[in-house]
């Protein structure tokens, strides 16, 4: 029982990470039709710069931790905004070229990160409490799981409030459904493009810092490996659907944890198998409308 609980909560924690990456991917795709391959690099850069700031501050304090998360968010939002303005916007509506540019950016930046920070993992230290465990019904749960879950829930709620309550949220929801009609109502939808990139980048940056605490290290490859699962999550959840991304993140991560434990480390395969099943049964994903 306690094992099940541990796996479940660890899965939720990992799912939280997937969601932080997938939410931005899904919004960007839904609104703009762009697959952002450089999303992993936003995450990695957030993690590295978060660490660079943290190591200049007192080790293990909550303030340091909080500041590094903030740095991750700001860095992620900034590079994402620049990417949209400088690389994506000039290729407006040329979707394949836009994907290619983000592919090039991801190759170039990962190489650059390797040049700057080296290929070996850099170990990070967080507040002592994160490495402790909490006893829940007999299961000893590492505390960082709770932080991850809380962060993802806050981001999810923030996004929902933003989408439901603000004019830009309205534009984004409408644009995901029918972008051309939004412009035909006199709305400059490109500003919303920049905004979703910034939001997605911020979520990825936060995810980067949190991932470095979850895994215990940063490396230039951290973004790429999470990105692949985020892709799977967005397809399973339905491209463009935030709720779908949230549900699929949890399903994928929990399945992965259980399969890794009970089925001899086959978590990654079970996830791909789940993807195959979803493709067979409902190619548009759980909550998606476009395939």
């Amino acid at each position: 029982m306690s094992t099940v609980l541990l796996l479940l909560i660890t899965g939720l924690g990992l799912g939280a990470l997937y969601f932080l990456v997938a939410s931005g991917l899904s919004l960007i795709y839904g609104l703009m039709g762009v697959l952002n391959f450089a999303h992993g690099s936003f995450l990695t850069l957030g993690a590295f710069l978060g660490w660079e700031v943290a190591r200049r501050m007192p080790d293990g304090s909550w303030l340091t931790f909080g500041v590094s998360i903030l740095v991750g968010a700001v860095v992620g939002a900034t590079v994402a905004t620049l990417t949209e303005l400088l690389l994506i916007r000039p290729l407006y509506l040329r979707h394949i070229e836009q994907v290619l540019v983000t592919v090039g950016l991801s190759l170039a930046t990962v190489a650059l990160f390797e040049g700057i920070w080296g290929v070996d993992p850099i170990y990070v230290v967080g507040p002592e409490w994160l490495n402790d465990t909490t006893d829940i019904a007999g299961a000893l749960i590492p505390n960082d799981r709770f932080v991850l879950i809380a962060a993802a829930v806050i981001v999810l709620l923030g996004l929902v409030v933003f989408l439901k309550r603000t004019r830009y949220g309205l534009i984004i929801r409408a644009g995901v459904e029918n972008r051309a009609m939004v412009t035909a109502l006199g709305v400059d939808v490109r500003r919303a493009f920049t905004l979703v990139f910034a939001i997605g980048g911020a979520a990825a940056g936060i995810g980067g810092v949190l991932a470095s605490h979850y895994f215990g290290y940063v490396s230039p490859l951290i973004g790429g490996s999470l990105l692949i699962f985020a892709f799977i999550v967005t397809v399973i959840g339905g491209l463009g659907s935030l709720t779908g991304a949230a549900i699929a993140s949890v399903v994928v991560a929990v399945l992965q944890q259980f399969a890794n434990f009970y089925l001899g480390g086959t978590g990654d395969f079970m996830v791909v198998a789940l993807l195959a099943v979803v493709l067979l049964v409902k190619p548009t994903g759980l909550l998606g409308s476009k395939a």
Partner: protein
Amino acid sequence: MNAPDPILRVAGLSASIDGQQVVEQVDFEVPATGVTAVLGRNGVGKTSTLKAVLGLISRSGVVEFDGARIDGEPTHRIVQRGIGYVPEDREVFASLTVAENLRLAERGTTPNRGMVDELFPDLIARSAQRAGSLSGGQQQMLSLARVLMNDNRLLMVDEPTKGLAPRIVTEVAAALERAAAVTPVLLVEQNLPVVRRLAHTVVVIEGGRVIHAGPAAELLDDDERTQQLLGVHSTDHGAPRGGTDHGAPKGDTDRSAPTGADESREETP
């Protein structure tokens, strides 16, 4: 002749979709008052012409709105100059509520709720309903209401009566007539009685080109000419049509068989 300047002037307009030419060297003018109807058989490029004017599909040629060239501008700028667009098939945002659809359409700081409240009380009562769950007629009203929220200098309305029951057709026509009293309208319409009721001028398109332009009454009173240009008698109400006839080859739709309005049915969402 001392005609006032037209509100919209189109000259040599061509447009293509996915590399396929759908509008070819179209010229016409929309007077600054009244309703100008664009007629033509299915698939001749009426919708594409409107989309080309708005920059929704790639186009070339001259488009002047109120004396200013707009053919190089992005869609949202063109619309902000004061054009209200009611697309074919309504294109309301199905996942948004009625109120949200209207809020999204508000352009200026002073939305013009008066006319909307007056014309569409039924819609206002359904503010919180998801637009996707409205009936076809209600969706058409919403699509119209979306543009009537703003002060426009031109309305472009694409087949507003398509697939609607006769009673709703009358309601839509009445609403359009109200709107046309203050704003010039460019109307694509297959229902000839509606055209006769609203339009002053007609432009007939065939194979992506303008083949006739002139006063509405003159064409519609000449049954033979109408039959020749539109393949339909001027007394017809327009055949009931679904939304799937777009792939039909140009001009081969035979709509000369008399079809009454009683055959048209309201679309269910």
